[in-house]
């Protein structure tokens, strides 16, 4: 398949001035500054193919944004190499950025005081988009992103959801082959989020745009991305399909059983028990060590059971455990 991005052994170090406390410390720092190096990204390698929709997740400060900024050519990696769309993102910046788009949920590229449409015209000039193509794309986006109500208003009067949609349209007017979305759903309500997901899905599936998506919302990932990369402390923890993570890490199941009367169940190897009110016992086990069928049969054979339910771990829970404990 066609490779869009290939990066190997990416590393980014930031130099941080370490100031001692107090007035004297500040003074001492002026004369003999002390620095320490913080590794935002320590060692990340991956390859992304054309048409992929890749979710990039990680806790705050895990190095997601830094990685995205290196991939877009804004930051220079301290070590390691990136080839994207066949070029070096920073050395061939002008050539590269003409073919990519980037949306940052926390910042807007639109001019604060100008109507949305004026910012779009500015972008048309910058990217030298032919009139016909521009009008066609604009019409299409106005329709899908439902922008007709606010396209002539100044950006400062828009709601966050509207601004985000305008920002997304702005970074896609030049029909990029590769688009980075850095937390595009941050701070949005459920409906606004859904609109954005729908649009990104459309972009990826219908228009074959390669999408890289960072977010803290697992539903974004489940609905938009096929592939998931988890980053933690500057390292890649997981790289694979979204379903894969469920089967790899989400094999813990819970069997919740309500007994007729207080029951005492002998400990079963591989199964932990938790006593809950109303004669309920919660059994946790790993599905590849213990078969549900055997456990249920054993329980039914010895006890009077009122109710049984089984829960599986959701992706959110899996990710939380990965962030907290690591793999």
């Amino acid at each position: 398949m066609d490779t869009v991005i290939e990066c190997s052994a990416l590393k980014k170090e930031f130099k941080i001035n370490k100031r001692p406390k107090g007035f004297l410390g500040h003074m001492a720092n002026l004369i003999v500054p002390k620095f320490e190096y913080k590794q935002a990204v320590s060692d990340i390698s991956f390859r992304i193919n054309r048409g992929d929709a890749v979710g990039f997740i990680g806790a705050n400060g895990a190095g997601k944004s830094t990685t995205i900024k290196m991939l877009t050519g804004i930051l220079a990696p301290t070590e390691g190499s990136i080839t994207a769309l066949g070029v070096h993102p920073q050395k061939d910046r002008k050539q590269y950025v003409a073919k990519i788009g980037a949306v940052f949920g926390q910042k807007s590229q639109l001019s604060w005081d100008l109507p949305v449409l004026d910012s779009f015209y500015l972008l048309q000039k910058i990217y030298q988009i032919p009139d016909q193509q521009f009008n066609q794309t604009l019409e299409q986006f106005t329709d899908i992103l439902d922008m007709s109500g606010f396209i002539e208003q100044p950006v400062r009067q828009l709601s966050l959801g509207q601004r985000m949609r305008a920002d997304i349209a702005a970074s896609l007017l030049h029909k990029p082959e590769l688009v980075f979305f850095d937390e595009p759903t941050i701070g949005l309500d459920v409906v606004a989020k859904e609109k954005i997901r729908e649009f990104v899905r459309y972009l990826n599936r219908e228009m074959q745009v390669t999408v890289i998506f960072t977010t803290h919302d697992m539903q974004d990932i489940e609905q938009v991305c096929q592939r998931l990369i988890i980053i933690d402390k500057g390292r890649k923890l997981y790289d694979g399909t979204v379903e894969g993570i469920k089967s790899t890490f989400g094999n813990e199941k819970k069997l919740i059983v309500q007994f007729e009367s207080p029951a005492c169940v002998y400990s079963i190897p591989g199964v932990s028990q938790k006593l809950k009110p109303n004669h309920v016992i919660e059994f946790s086990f790993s599905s590849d060590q213990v078969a549900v069928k055997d456990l249920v049969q054993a329980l039914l054979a010895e006890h009077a059971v009122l109710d049984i339910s089984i829960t599986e771990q959701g992706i959110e829970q899996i990710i939380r455990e990965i962030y907290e404990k690591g793999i």
Partner: protein
Amino acid sequence: MKKEFNFSVYLMYTKTIFLSKLVYKFDYVLGLLNTCIQLFIACLIWQTLYGGNASVEGISLPMVITTIVIGQGLSNAYFINDQAVSKLIKDGSISFTLLKPVSFRLQLLAEALGEITFRILSNFLPAVIIFSLATDVLPPAGVLPFLLFLISISLGFGVLWMLSSIVQFLSFWVMNVWSLSTIKNVLITVLSGAVIPIWFLPEKIASFVSYTPFGAIYFIPTRLYLGDIPPAEAGIYFTQQLLWIIAMLGISHLLWSMGKQRIVVQGG
């Protein structure tokens, strides 16, 4: 792939800034008033210093006034924000700037030219007309000197721009370039001949100035205008201006290539 240079994009940046300046009419009236007051005070001082003498050291009063009006008038019009890059770095908007398929350095220049064109039209030229009517501003020494002046003043702006771009790109290392910018501006004010024509500087300082780029900004063009430099010698001075531009472009290019490796995007 061939790197395409598209002039119209940069022209658009210039135009956008130019048009945005038209909005602040009051600002423009005050700017003109400010320039006129400054030039008026300078003219008064020189008139007093001359004390009725026709010429001092072979330099006539109208020559000095012409130098002042061109040098100081233009320096008011040449509004260059040395902190443009440092502001982009501080508020993190440099990431959007770098995400556009546009040369960053040419964009900076194009935007500065938008403001400067506005100020020359709204500020410098009216002031020149007012002072030509009110005082003894000399006309150019001839058609040829005037054309040479136009070439030389453009080169002079190049020198000024390169000086500024060095300061601007230092903000990759020093987050706050305000003090550097102030030092640069003071040196320009004192040594460029815009306030005190270089003819009157003590010999030692004058010969020092000839080894710096400062005299190449306003003073060489003004001397060509007055015919103080014979047109036949213009080539030497153009070369001098060009060499300064090339040398400083080299430094500025080096700073930019090293500096962009150090870009830190602040605030997430």
